[in-house]
């Protein structure tokens, strides 16, 4: 709206892809709180839930057009424009987790590719940052416990992004729905199994009411992060210090989100087991192996795209070095856990 006083804070309208009840909205709020405080009140972010101005899947278009100034979302929601979007969170897993892939954004050339994809390849008028290396996303919720890869075949399964191609390669019939549609879709029989993201989000939208078997560990989305998008004109119109606050605020939110996730995800997983009678199991290695083979199967046609191949090569090169260090260096945490909490795993 026009005519604001010189002293008044600059208000950014930020819409997320999440309903107001989701923990992701609280994580977005953690970012907003930090930005507002660091700017001494000069920046104010009006955080809106999905659907307030535009639909959950429309936020990138909306930020490009300047209908909203900013968005809190994930790249898989716009991978219909270019499959390479999936490489910024939901691509093939070469061994690196989400935090190692965020390190790739900073030091392996990832941010250059991200900028090239959004601004040059797609011609979008946006600036974006990624943060919060999400814990690997569970295989999901099923009517029967999954003990063998063949059970995935024939399921009507909800997931998003390249994971859709992956599960299709494993024989499932895949529907990609926004989070808020999952429970109704289970009720409507549109799907008979699904994954969303984490124990807290899953529990909050009522996953446990429509399925009772929760399978943890999967390679389908093992390195996703949040995406903060800003309308480029709006972003560049801000004073340099405010731009810096928006950029580095994303880094601050990374840790804040992680700490909050560790606390919430674990206690909600416990609740699911004890209060909701959910059968929580680790996905068998045979299914994980089948997922890696399915990745091998879907990659060749995708690699025909020059940009896609370029990004994958860069990621592989990064993982080969960084994860070698990381895995060789890290002690076996399972061993220690078993030592102090025998029989729990």
């Amino acid at each position: 709206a026009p005519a604001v006083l010189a002293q008044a804070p600059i208000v950014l309208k930020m819409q997320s892809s999440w309903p107001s009840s989701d923990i992701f909205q609280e994580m977005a709020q953690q970012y907003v709180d930090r930005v507002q405080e660091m700017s001494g009140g000069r920046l104010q972010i009006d955080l809106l839930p999905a659907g307030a101005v535009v639909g959950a899947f429309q936020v990138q278009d909306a930020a490009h057009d300047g209908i909203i100034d900013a968005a809190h979302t994930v790249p898989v929601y716009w991978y219909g424009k270019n499959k390479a979007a999936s490489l910024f969170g939901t691509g093939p897993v070469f061994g690196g987790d989400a935090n190692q892939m965020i390190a790739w954004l900073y030091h392996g050339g990832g941010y250059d590719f991200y900028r090239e994809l959004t601004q040059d390849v797609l011609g979008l008028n946006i600036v974006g940052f990624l943060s919060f290396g999400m814990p690997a996303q569970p295989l999901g919720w099923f009517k029967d416990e999954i003990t063998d890869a063949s059970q995935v075949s024939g399921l009507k399964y909800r997931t998003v992004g390249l994971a859709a191609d992956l599960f299709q390669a494993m024989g499932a019939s895949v529907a990609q729905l926004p989070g808020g549609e999952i429970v109704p879709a289970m009720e409507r029989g549109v799907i008979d199994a699904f994954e969303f993201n984490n124990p807290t989000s899953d529990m909050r939208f009522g996953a446990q009411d429509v399925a009772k078997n929760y399978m943890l560990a999967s390679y389908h989305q093992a390195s996703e992060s949040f995406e903060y998008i800003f309308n480029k004109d709006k972003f560049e119109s801000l004073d340099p210090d405010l731009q810096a606050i928006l950029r580095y605020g994303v880094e601050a939110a990374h840790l804040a989100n992680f700490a909050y996730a560790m606390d919430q995800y674990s206690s909600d997983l416990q609740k699911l087991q004890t209060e909701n009678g959910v059968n929580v199991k680790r996905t068998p290695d045979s299914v994980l192996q089948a997922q890696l083979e399915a990745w091998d199967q879907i990659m060749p046609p995708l690699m025909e795209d020059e940009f896609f191949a370029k990004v994958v090569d860069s990621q592989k090169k990064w993982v080969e070095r960084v994860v070698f260090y990381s895995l060789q260096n890290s002690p076996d945490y399972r061993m220690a856990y078993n030592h102090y909490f025998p029989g729990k795993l």
Partner: protein
Amino acid sequence: MTDPQIAILMLGLFIVVIMLGFPIAFTLMAMGIGFGYYAYFDADRMRHLFDNRIFDLFVNQTYSVMANDVLTAIPLFLFMGYIVERANIVDRLFETLSIATRRMPGSMAVAALITCALFATATGIVGAVVTLMGLLALPAMLKARYDERFASGVICAGGTLGILIPPSIMLIVYAAASGVSIVRLYAGALLPGFLLAGMYLVYIIGRAMLQPSLAPRPEEPEEPIPTGKLAWMLLTSFFPLAILILSVLGAILFGLATPSEAASIGALGGLVLAIAYRALTWKRLQESVYLTVRTTAMVCWLFVGSWTFSSVFSYLGGEHIVRDFVMGLDMTPLQFLILAQIIIFLLGWPLEWSEIIIIFVPIFLPLLPLFDIDPLFFGILIALNLQTSFLTPPMAMSAYYLKGIAPPHVRLTQIFAGSLPYVFMVFVTMVMLYVFPQIAYYLPQLFYGR
């Protein structure tokens, strides 16, 4: 003025401007674009007068309506309705049911009510049901010297039941507006719908027993209809329609199919039915298609307008100010519920259900969590409440349809008077639902465990 105050102005202005009689879909669109132009006005970023981002928002919201997977059920259910409507069925049905109920008090009114309820449920087209029954059942009842008020009330109220009893398009529209699962809404509306229909039935029989002059017993036919023949008549009129409705509903409730899928099965079933009754001609099929596309466009363009309107409303912060205002009133949940329902009832005088649900209900929805009211429960109360919008003047569509085809001596005031007891019964049902919410929750809990 602050932005939220502008949002309130936008809402108030819309309520005034709606009276100019311009198509509402475009009025909403205009209000959204006009106020959005203000909201997005930014002299630094606009290269010319039309370089305003509101136009992009409008396009974006239009696409969201186009890609909405709940609304896909609307054309399919409409198509099913138009096909069934043209399948020569209502007349057989009323005839058969009149014979089957012959021994009951108020038998023809009972037959008319059941015919209306069943036919309205299958087609969902209130106007067609009331008009058809006004031509078939009303003269028959008047000939049997039924009271004009009594006879016309049954038809008006019975025909309106179709928007409540699932599969109902009104509930799909509510689901799209509120985000409540359409399947749970259908399950939830089933018992309240039957309860209301049952109450109508008890009222008809009760009144006919207490005041036999309202509904004289028809004369015995010269030769009684043999049971076997009656059974055959029922088998060819009542059951096909009942089975069609039950299979559509069953498929949805048991999770075998989405509402859109069930609706397409229903449309296919309607086609089969029309073929079986030798009523399907190329011309009728064409007509059904054309009517379907026109009605779908009417409903869905309302969504295009309304989603643009509400985007701008919430961009300006209108939701916050409504919320703060309502919180400031310091109401109990019951007071809020009553106030909301009174407003919706009053809106039902001048407006029709589609406008009320698409435009006004979204204003109440964000307030529900404040009072811990379940949007499913709220939706079913609204669905009941909006039964009255067809029966209350000045826009009592059921009464107008009936008046349009009734014999001239049946006066509009008689039709209103005849409908009044049903409006009262709707209120009684709403109170019962409030006191015993299990009426709404029993089936959703049974089918979906919550």
